[in-house]
């Protein structure tokens, strides 16, 4: 039994059976210091990181849900009076952890450019037209199988000034929570066959080739809707629990 300075009593729980989340494999995530992407130079820690064990604050995490979502959030083509310009696409997939377990009821947030490669943002100055019928933001909650689905417009490429003739490959930004603080992920979805991938320091910041391909969606003719929209599958894999460490408490 411990008493804090505020007089709160913390009962001893003895050994708490907490999951341990697996470490990423080497090369799985980009190094924070990535010279090809110039803005990383002054924005990465230089001192060694300190190992943070996975305890109560880390194995729990925000479970944000329905209060943030409206039906229109998952269809970026119906958020205004008219239809946006561009190629209509369906982007769908499954959120699961690295053990293959679906992650249900988790918030998926996306943002992207319009068809012309222009973000609707006050600091965006790329001289491409805005589309009055497209904001470029979406939210969805995964279902019991970890599945999500958005209807949107094929985003465009845009110049970004990182180096001479620098153009970002078309992409959709994704933000996910999973169910634990350890699983939080912000990433980008790219399109198969995009010739700009080869030249992009952000995509190529990921050292491991197979991991990079995890960020490239797969075109799906089966899910493409005749006379209506192309479909891309983008599954997202979050850190799973290390089964060698975590033992289910005995009932």
């Amino acid at each position: 039994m411990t008493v804090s300075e505020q007089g709160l009593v913390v009962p001893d729980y003895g050994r708490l059976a907490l999951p341990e989340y697996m470490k990423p494999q080497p090369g799985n995530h980009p190094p924070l210091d990535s010279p090809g992407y110039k803005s990383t130079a002054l924005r990465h820690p230089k001192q060694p990181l300190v190992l943070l064990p996975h305890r109560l604050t880390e194995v729990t995490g925000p479970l944000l849900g329905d209060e943030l979502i409206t039906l229109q959030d998952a269809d970026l083509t119906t958020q205004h009076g008219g239809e946006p310009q561009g190629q209509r696409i369906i982007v769908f997939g499954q959120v699961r952890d690295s053990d293959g377990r679906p992650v249900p009821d988790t918030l998926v947030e996306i943002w992207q450019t319009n068809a012309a490669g222009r973000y609707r943002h006050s600091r965006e100055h790329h001289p491409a037209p805005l589309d009055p019928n497209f904001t470029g933001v979406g939210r969805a909650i995964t279902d019991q199988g970890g599945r999500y689905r958005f209807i949107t417009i094929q985003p465009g490429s845009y110049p970004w000034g990182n180096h001479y003739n620098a153009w970002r490959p078309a992409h959709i930004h994704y933000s996910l929570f999973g169910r634990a603080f350890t699983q939080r992920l912000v990433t980008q979805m790219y399109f198969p066959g995009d010739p700009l991938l080869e030249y992009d320091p952000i995509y190529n910041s990921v050292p491991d080739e197979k991991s990079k391909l995890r960020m490239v969606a797969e075109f799906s003719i089966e899910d493409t809707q005749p006379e209506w929209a192309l479909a891309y599958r983008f599954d997202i894999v979050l850190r799973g629990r290390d089964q060698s460490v975590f033992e289910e408490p005995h009932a």
Partner: protein
Amino acid sequence: MSELLTPSQTVGPYFSMRLPWPEGPYVVPAGTPGAITILGRLYDGAGAAIPDGLIETWQADPNGRFAHPDDPRGPIVDGDLAFRGFGRCKTNHDGSFKIVTLKPGPLPFGDGRTEAPHIDVSVFARGMLDRSVTRIYFPDEEAANAADPVLEVVPADRRATLIAVPGGDGLLRFDVFMQGPSETVFFDL
């Protein structure tokens, strides 16, 4: 068999189209009795404010409980739904951010030791290919901080970067330095 993870990428310069929302900085509604306001600024390695960063916080409630079923002690049971434990705030042109919350309680570490009250923090920004994770500890918890099993492994001369500075009247300051002489301690999660 373990699948390869989806790699992290930067939030980029335009995340504020989607991620912030008006109540984001309010872990508890403004005016909640006992609420504290944590004010800070995010700085880069040249000492310049980072105006396109995002701060997220996650923490226990004042009783040391979480709004989450994976806590083996069970989720918050007092029905205090206003406490979601999560805060999100975009940085302003001067790098400043604000989180309004309740001070969390201490937590069992699971081996008989106790964690001092703390808030887990994720820092995102353009130019950051992955988040950086840090913690906020409280200046009025000297004894608990001294016994904290996480602070204990932080080099002694850097611990102060994790402890908020009292600002008087329910205010705390917590600045985040990505680099430089007062570089904040970041964690390998």
